[in-house]
């Protein structure tokens, strides 16, 4: 298991102590797959409380699936996923919903409700979980929209937003009830540099000011190494490297080196497994 101690063994560093508490997430010896395709095999990692943890890895390495396991959207085939000491896979529906009220999730594609305006999208969790007065909901929603720079877009509908704007609205919606644990699924994809910088600052600000436990799944290595307190690199179903950004940068592991440098050469294959290229070009035509 890639606990603090084993991580240090793995990285050869003891520069970081993972804080533990009510919002610590532990993934222990987890197996998961889709049919015959194995996504995780004996995955171990710990997300420390109140820190920004970046889960890095190539496309298809199961980063988003890991968030789904942590939020209870999927169940591990083997092993345990614990959030604050509660085993997510063993919770009843009511208990899972109670746990999720402490969480916020920013989906990769925003997942905004298309029949609701921007204002109503952000107000949605507040209306569902509280009985606040309309004036208070109005203030709360406008404060969150101001934080993501979209106060002026409150009356627009999701179909009128760009991809980046939709992501920012989704972020406002996911933080409107001030969650204790935030999951960000590829928060920077499709954002322009200004929005990217703003979102990163917001993630850091939320974490530092409110002590939110933040899990960011991304393949934007440079940006993640700047904002994260702790990083995991996952590939081939398990953790290939773990440590603080400084440690990750210095790691000798060929997996880590290839991923951090963005090289096509290395243990992470660019091509999906296939037969010889020449066989496909000049051999017998394969049925599609």
């Amino acid at each position: 298991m890639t606990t603090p101690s084993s991580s240090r063994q793995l990285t050869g560093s003891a520069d970081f102590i993972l804080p533990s508490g009510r919002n610590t997430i532990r993934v222990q010896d987890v197996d998961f797959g889709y049919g015959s395709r194995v996504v995780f095999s004996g995955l171990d990692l710990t997300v420390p409380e109140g820190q920004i943890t970046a889960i890095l890895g190539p496309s298809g390495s199961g980063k988003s699936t890991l968030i789904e396991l942590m939020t209870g959207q999927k169940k591990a085939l083997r092993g345990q996923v614990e959030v604050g000491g509660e085993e997510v896979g063993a919770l009843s529906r009511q208990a899972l919903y109670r746990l999720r009220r402490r969480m916020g999730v920013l989906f990769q594609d925003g997942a905004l409700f298309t029949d609701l305006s921007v204002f109503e999208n952000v107000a949605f969790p507040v209306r569902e979980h509280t009985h606040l007065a309309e004036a208070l909901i109005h203030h709360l929603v406008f404060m969150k929209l101001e934080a993501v720079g979209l106060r002026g877009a409150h009356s627009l509908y999701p179909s009128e937003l760009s991809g980046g704007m939709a992501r920012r609205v989704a972020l406002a919606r996911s933080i409107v009830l001030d969650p204790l644990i935030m999951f960000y699924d590829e928060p920077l994809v499709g954002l322009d540099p200004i929005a990217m910088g703003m979102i990163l600052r917001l993630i850091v600000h939320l974490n530092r000011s409110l002590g939110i436990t933040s899990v960011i799944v991304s393949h934007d290595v440079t940006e993640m190494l700047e904002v994260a307190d702790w990083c995991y690199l996952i590939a081939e179903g398990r953790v290939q490297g773990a440590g603080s950004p400084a440690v990750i940068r210095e790691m000798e592991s060929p997996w880590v080196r290839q991923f951090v440098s963005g090289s096509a050469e290395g243990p992470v294959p660019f091509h999906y497994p296939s037969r010889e290229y020449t066989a496909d070009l000049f051999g017998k035509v394969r049925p599609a």
Partner: protein
Amino acid sequence: MRQLGSLVRPILEFCAALGRRLHFLVTSLTLIPSTLARPRQFVEQLFYVGSVSVILIAVGGLFVGLVLALQFYTALSRFGATSSLGGLVALALLRELGPVLTALLFAGRAGTSLASELGLMRATRQIDAMEVMAVDPMRRVVAPRFLAGILAMPLLAAIFSAMGVLGSYLIGIKMMGLDPGVFWSSMRHEVRFHADLVNGMVKSLIFGVACSLISLYEGFHARPTAEGVGQATTRSVVISSMAILALDFLLTSFMY
């Protein structure tokens, strides 16, 4: 043994599919009180479900009434019984054609709309977003639409039958020159409140449950792809139509 397995497997799969739908039905029914506690969502859905279908239902009812009156008038005139036209048309509409055709039109219009809406919500992860926000999509999305579908059906069937009667009035009185008094008194004489009107409404309610359930189930469990949403929408019409016709036979055999 393998042959036995291939024989038994479809039966087991059918039972499992039926069980999943029954579970969906029971869950939707148990969530109706919480839907009534927040009537705004339900009223919005009732308005939406009704408004998308009402023109189609009204026009459909009018034309069915026109055709029925023409057909019945021709047949009745052979026996010199054209005075029974009003009663005969009303009976056909209230007992059978009103509930059944309304349900078929509802399945093709509002049912497909519900299935595709939920399928798209699934494909664009809106249902997942609700789940991780600790909002039960069955309560928030399915139950209000389910109740709206159930209640919209008898109302639409009433509109269908009323428009059908109007159509038969236009043919019988305005075109064929029947006496209006004879036409309406035949209708009043033939139609019984409980046996015809109430049973027709009960049929509509049951069709409403079946149509809404099937459309919502197919949409809610659609594969999250464009093809999956299309298949779910098609399945909702096909299964609803078959269910309506089968239920109509069962209900008619018990009621009349």
